């Protein structure tokens, strides 16, 4: 593809870049210059090495958290970082046309959409308008870990990541084929709002 070459060519390299970038972010050492020159290269095209399905939450800006330059991450964001058909379509586009080698489903601590789901399960609190759709999408994860040890909120955040990572592979033939041929890996992670660290599951 035209544009700057991908920063990683395998899922392992891709994951490594994300881990290193996040470590720079945690250590307050992110380096984010040279954007202008890169921008001109990007006019020709994009070769993102990873796809991130993340939350809309303003505290989890994907490129910042992973300390990545424009052009590196193809990003789908919806409150509660769950997979719907539209998100799947975007992800398939980046896998089959842009050749990305890693998909990260990224949840985060203190997720409001997950919290709304816990409240729904606890007291039947229903959200107005389309917001209840988010609750319905997250409900399976929250219900599955209701009686587990530890903090329900944290457990539900992690379970929601696991269920959606599994669901990307199950629901997409394009993703399944790419995973089976070793070209693509799907992983889950949880971003900690306090430390800034992403823990891969």
């Amino acid at each position, binding site marked *: 593809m035209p544009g700057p070459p991908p920063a990683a060519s395998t899922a392992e390299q891709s994951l490594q870049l994300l881990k290193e970038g996040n470590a*720079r*972010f*945690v250590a*307050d050492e992110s380096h*984010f*210059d040279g*954007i*202008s020159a890169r*921008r*001109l290269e*990007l*006019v020709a*095209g*994009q070769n993102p090495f990873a796809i991130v399905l993340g939350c*809309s*939450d*303003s*505290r989890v*800006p994907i*490129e*910042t958290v992973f*300390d990545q330059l*424009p*052009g*590196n*991450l*193809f*990003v*789908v*964001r*919806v*409150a*509660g970082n769950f997979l*719907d*058909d*539209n*998100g799947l*379509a*975007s992800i*398939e*586009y980046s896998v*089959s046309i*842009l050749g990305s080698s890693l998909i990260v489903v990224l949840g985060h*601590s*203190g997720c*409001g*959409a997950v919290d*709304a789901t816990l409240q729904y399960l606890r007291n039947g609190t229903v959200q*107005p*308008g*389309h*917001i209840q*759709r*988010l609750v319905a*999408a997250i409900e399976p994860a929250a219900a599955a870990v209701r009686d587990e040890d530890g903090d329900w909120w944290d457990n539900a955040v992690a379970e929601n990541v696991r269920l959606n990572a599994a669901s990307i592979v199950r629901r*997409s033939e*394009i993703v399944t084929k790419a995973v089976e041929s070793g070209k693509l890996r799907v992983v889950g992670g949880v971003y900690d*709002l*306090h430390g*800034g660290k992403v823990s891969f599951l």
Partner: protein
Amino acid sequence: MNENCDQFDHVGPDRAHFLRVAGLGLGAAFAGSPLAAAAAGAGPARGATTPAGALEELVSGDARFTAGTPANCGSQTGRMAKLGEGQNPHAIILSCSDSRVPNDTIFDQRPGNIFGVRIAGNYVTNDGLGSMEYGVAVLKALVIVVLGHSGCGAVKAALGFVKDGTTVPGHIQDVVAAVAPAAKATKGQPGDWLDNAIAENVRMNVKALTARSQILSDAEKNGTIKIVGGVYNIGAAKVTFLS
């Protein structure tokens, strides 16, 4: 790292934020008052307090990005500690998944400022709508920007579909179907079809927000939020807001 970054690094995240808010002419006294703390959610104060102020913040942030002098570079861990308590984003941006269009970078905004919904082709989906309603009803964001961009692959695919029925595999065709109305509406118009379709797709989705959501429609009517469209030019790094 440029001088601007160093300067802001020395000032520190909270102080830099205060300076920028004060620079917009918003009362510094209000920002620190118990009233403000009570009115806003936990977390850092909102970067703007009115829809017009929120839009101004985005316009000036994009100007910094275009000029290559971002204020919000470097990591944000000092501020992130505060963000652990809550978020008060001033803007919601519905934009494309394209890796060349990172919202926070383009508008030179700090973590906590932009609530982001991203989907290839930046069109309104029911789940995206739920997310944006959450951003407005619960988080009290002031502006929604539907942001398209030059060279959008999703729109290009839609032109191919409208032109000669070219389809794409798997679920990807859903994206094409969602963007096709804008491609059809601009076919045969003067100028570049791709550019015209990109802008039209933004306009159509700006309208769809209020047409499909009572919460957003009410908030716009009573002046709580402003909804605008814009197109980001990748080469120029500039966002042009559509009238």
